[in-house]
Every structure is written in structure tokens, then in C-alpha cells.
């Protein structure tokens, strides 16, 4: 099961209710539930947005856009209804944090959606959960129904004179739908093809109405910020990177798990102390620090602060908070192949650089890893990936290209060792010839 872990360095600003039965609304109320939304009502729309700006909360989906600013982009007057859309289509490989939020603190998501709604003048919000998370959709549906039964949702919420409805929605298996414009398409009952921007969702979003789209962790952080105060929350993190982050430690470490650490926590310490170091007494080979789509870091590059700006300076991204640790027994070519196979499978096919680029990279890496590569393949892969960057409607093309560029640049010698039919130096870990190829 998805068990909970703990470490003394954790600062449980948003995960402190986990494991305390807070999915039950009465227990949630005992644990200060639905107080934040009442505070927000008193503050009014401008007060809420100022509080959010002061918190320095940045989008937890990966891009790190300041949440308060995002909310301020929604026009005050709109002929069409405004909407809040919670992105719970968690599917970036290496990321499993929203799952724990929905399981252990579902009402915090509802409260976050409500506060966002109050800030921008929306009357309804949707919580989109990936189709695989059926057990969470059952938890979420019950949480919403319980909130209605208590009178917290619907007409005149908490005597504010304002109405607010929250609905859940389910996906059916698609990574691409985690991208905000594809998410809206999916919720509208269509294929998850990205929309061209501008117009941005804050102006023209769901069913043409202004829409705020935030990651589940972002929205779940909101009520906690209102309870502790924006200033206090901001102080937990580093400048311009407020608060905490749910880091999903996975891969070849002793103590994998989801840990809530202050923004800017040292990545090396995260791996060796919080995560208990590399398993089986092995050595660190690489870290993919923000979900599968970010460039990998070498062992001599991990002594850095895990926040949006420091990661960017180090040539990678904080991304989704998925920290994937590789030991020195792993084959980077194989890892790169599995990464690109994923993106090839998930590319929606709308933009040619992404559709053809992921397929070409995949074919090259399949052949290369099987021992039929030629030296020119290495440069070709880099050239091809670099030419995908910035040439697609949505970031999936970049997400596929960035890790491949890093693998080829940083592990060139290992790619060369696979050349001209030489056996894979790591072949003991899964026979090369049996590499499964997804056929759909």
C-alpha cells in the first residue's frame, strides 16, 4: 500500500492531517477544517489575492508560476461563468503526491477550490482525477457529498451571500491531459488535444469562461496558508519560493516515500539523509529531480537547493517534485529508452515535432540499446531533441526532449560503450533482446 513515511526534517505545513482520518468530515472539522474558507470570506477577493501573493506559493504542477498572480489575471467582469479547475490528473512519472492528498486530506482540496472561487468570483469548481485513481474518486465524491450535507457547499456558503458548487470529474488514462488546455478539452468530453494560446485560460477557458487551473497540491496548500498566515508560510521556504514541497522520493534509495520538506531543502541531503541513501550499499549515478521530463543531474551536481530558481540555475527543473534516484547498476541508455517510449506513447500527435520526434527518438533508442547503434546516432538524437524544443503547442514536446538531451550530453561515454554491437555493459539487469516494446 501507499504507506506514509516521516523524517525529522519535514515541515508538515500541508501534510499534518495525513494519517489522522481527515477524509471524514467530522474529523476534518476537529482538525480546524473549513475555517480557512471562512477567513477568506472575511478578507474578500482582493484580500485573498494579496494573501496568496504574500505567501509566495508557486504552482506545484511543475511550471512554478506564482499562484496569486495567476488568480489576479482573471477579469473581474465576465459575460460567461468563471470556473476553478483542480488538476488531479497526476501522471508525470515519478510523481505520487496528489494521490496522498486526495486519500488523506480531500477536504483541503475542496477548501482550496472554494477559496480560489471566492478570489476570482467563480461559482463552481471541478476536481479532475485521473481514471486510474478510482478509489480516490470514491473518497472525493463522499467528501463533496458530506460538504453539501453540512451546508458548506451550494447556496450562500457560510452566510456570505455567495453560492459555490464543487463537482468531481474522472479521466480515462492520458498523460497529456495533465496539461492545462488539454485538461479542459478532456473535461469538455473531447480528445485531450492542447489549445493554442493566447487566449489564456484565465480569459477563455472551460466552455469559453475565464478559468483558473491549479495543481491539486497548489489548491490543497491554500487553506493551510490561510490558517497559518501567508507570511509564516513564505518564511518556511527560500525567497520567491514560499512554503514547502511534497517530494516523492523513488528509485534506488533506502527509504522511498513522499516527504514534505521546506522549499530549498538541499537535494543531496534529501537523498542521503531523508531518503536514507542509495540502496544495497551502491553509489549514486544520477538523479532526475522533478519528474521524468526534467534533465538529470550527475552526483557532483546534486549539492543544490531544491527550489524552482536554484534548480533552474543548475540546468534542470523542480518540476512535479518527483525525485528519481538511480544507482550505478542502472543503464542510462535503457533508462532513456523507457523515458522516450513513454512520451512516444503519450504524445497526442497534434504537433509534428513532438509526434515525429518522440517516435524517431524511440526507434533510434530501441535499435541503439539492442546493440545496432552507430556513432552518428548519438549526435542525431541530440540534434533531433534540440529541434523539438519550443516548437509545440504544449510542453509535452519539451518534456520529451529535455531529458534525452541531458542523457546524451552527460552520459556520452555510456552511449558510446553501446556502439557497434558491443553488449550492453549492464546487460545482467534484464536481457536486452527481451526489452518489451509497447505495441499500442
Amino acid at each position, binding site marked *: *500500500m*501507499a*504507506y506514509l513515511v516521516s523524517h525529522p526534517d519535514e515541515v508538515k505545513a500541508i501534510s499534518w492531517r495525513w494519517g489522522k482520518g481527515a477524509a471524514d468530515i467530522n474529523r476534518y472539522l476537529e482538525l480546524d477544517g473549513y475555517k480557512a474558507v471562512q477567513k477568506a470570506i472575511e478578507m474578500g477577493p482582493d484580500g485573498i489575492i494579496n494573501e496568496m501573493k504574500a505567501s509566495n506559493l508557486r504552482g506545484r504542477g511543475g511550471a512554478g508560476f506564482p499562484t496569486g498572480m495567476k488568480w489576479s489575471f482573471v477579469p473581474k467582469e465576465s459575460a460567461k461563468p468563471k470556473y476553478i479547475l483542480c488538476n488531479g490528473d*497526476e*501522471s508525470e*512519472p*515519478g*510523481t*505520487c503526491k*496528489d*494521490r496522498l492528498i486526495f486519500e488523506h486530506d480531500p477536504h483541503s482540496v475542496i477548501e482550496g477550490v472554494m477559496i480560489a472561487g471566492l478570489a476570482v468570483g467563480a461559482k463552481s469548481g471541478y476536481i479532475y482525477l*485521473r*481514471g*486510474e485513481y*478510482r*478509489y480516490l474518486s470514491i473518497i472525493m465524491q463522499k467528501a463533496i457529498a458530506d460538504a453539501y450535507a453540512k451546508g458548506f457547499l451550494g447556496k450562500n456558503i457560510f452566510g456570505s451571500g455567495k453560492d459555490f*458548487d464543487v*463537482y468531481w*470529474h*474522472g479521466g*480515462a*488514462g*492520458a*498523460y497529456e491531459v495533465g496539461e492545462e488546455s488539454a485538461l479542459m478539452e*478532456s*473535461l*469538455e*468530453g*473531447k*480528445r*485531450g488535444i492542447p489549445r493554442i494560446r493566447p487566449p489564456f485560460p484565465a480569459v477563455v477557458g472551460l*466552455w469559453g469562461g475565464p478559468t483558473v487551473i491549479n495543481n491539486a497540491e497548489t489548491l490543497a496548500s491554500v487553506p493551510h496558508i490561510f490558517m497559518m498566515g501567508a507570511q509564516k508560510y513564505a518564511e518556511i521556504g527560500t525567497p520567491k519560493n514560499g512554503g514547502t514541497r511534497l517530494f*516523492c*522520493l*523513488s*528509485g*534506488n534509495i533506502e527509504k*522511498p516515500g*513522499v516527504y514534505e520538506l521546506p522549499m530549498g531543502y538541499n537535494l543531496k541531503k534529501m537523498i542521503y539523509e531523508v531518503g536514507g541513501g542509495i540502496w544495497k550499499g551502491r553509489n549514486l549515478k544520477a538523479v*532526475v529531480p522533478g519528474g*521524468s521530463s526534467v534533465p538529470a543531474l550527475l552526483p557532483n551536481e546534486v549539492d543544490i537547493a531544491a527550489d524552482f530558481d536554484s534548480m533552474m540555475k543548475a540546468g534542470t527543473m523542480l518540476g512535479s517534485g*518527483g525525485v*528519481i534516484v*538511480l*544507482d550505478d547498476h*542502472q543503464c542510462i541508455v*535503457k*533508462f532513456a529508452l*523507457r523515458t522516450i517510449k*513513454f512520451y512516444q*506513447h*503519450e504524445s*497526442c500527435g497534434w504537433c509534428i515535432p513532438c509526434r515525429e520526434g518522440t517516435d524517431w527518438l524511440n526507434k533510434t533508442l530501441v535499435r541503439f540499446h539492442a546493440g545496432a547503434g552507430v556513432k552518428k546516432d548519438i549526435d542525431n538524437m541530440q540534434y533531433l531533441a534540440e529541434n523539438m524544443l519550443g516548437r509545440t503547442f504544449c510542453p509535452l514536446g519539451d518534456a520529451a526532449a529535455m531529458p534525452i538531451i541531458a542523457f546524451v550530453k552527460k552520459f556520452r561515454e555510456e552511449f558510446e560503450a553501446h556502439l557497434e554491437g558491443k553488449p550492453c555493459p549492464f546487460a545482467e539487469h*534484464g536481457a536486452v533482446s*527481451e*526489452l*518489451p516494446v*509497447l*505495441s*499500442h
Partner: protein
Amino acid sequence: MHFSDEFEKRYAEMVGHYPTKRSILVPSLLYAQDEVGYLSDEVIAELAQRCELTQLEVRNVISYYSMLRMKPAGKYNVQVCTNISCLIRGGEEIYDHCKKKLGIGHKQVTKDGMFSLEEVECIGACSWAPAMQVNYDFHENLTDEGVDKILAEYKAKG
């Protein structure tokens, strides 16, 4: 085409949540599939009519989502993740073990219709890898022996 009362109750409730008819399509396709086993021509025709879409438009949506299928799967659909976090903790070996144990490959069904197998992309169990889902149930921190036990339990349930 008749769905269960449970389906109809959920459908009637959900349809009121959206300003457009077709918005209910994706979740209702998945619920219909759970009941019927796959998205049959009848299911497609029914939901197309309810959403005021052509059947082609519905098929167009179905083909986009990896969980939706137009052929029956086994009673227990075993979905093994081999994506990166699972890969480096033995996800491929777990998938190979399932292939051998069940005697089937990707998207195939056992002769008795009890099990089907799929190699899937990340299911959000990275910190508890390697992992798989059987239908909607998560099974994590897998070993070959653990998989044997899990499959035996499903088989015993029948």
C-alpha cells in the same frame, strides 16, 4: 441498451454538473466499460445518442484514452507499470514474471477469460515501486512471490 440502476443514478446526477451534453462523456465511458467489460457497439450508440454526438465522434474520443477499450479484457485486468521509477526497482522483471505466470502477453486474455495483462505507463505508485493495478486495486512493493500470491487470491475469488 440497459445499464444498471447504479450507473443510471450516477449518470443522472453527473449530467447536471455540466453546461454541455458531451462533457459527461469520458467518465461515463469508463463506468459503462466497467459494467459491460468493454465499449461495445451498443454502448457507443447509446452514449452517442445521450451526448448528442455521432458514433464516430465517440469512437474518436475512445481511441485517445488508454484505459478505454473496444474488446473485452479478462475479469481481472493486470496492469504492470514498467515506467522509470518501477523499471529501476524491477518493474520489467515483474512484468516478465506475469507474462510467464499467465502465459499471455500485452493486451492478451487467458483462455478462461479470468485474467488479461497490460504493460502500462506510470500509475502514480512511484515511491512504492514496483507496482501494478488489478482492475482498480493497487498492489505495491511487488516481488515475484508477492505477485504469485496476489494472482492466486484473485483466481480463488473467481
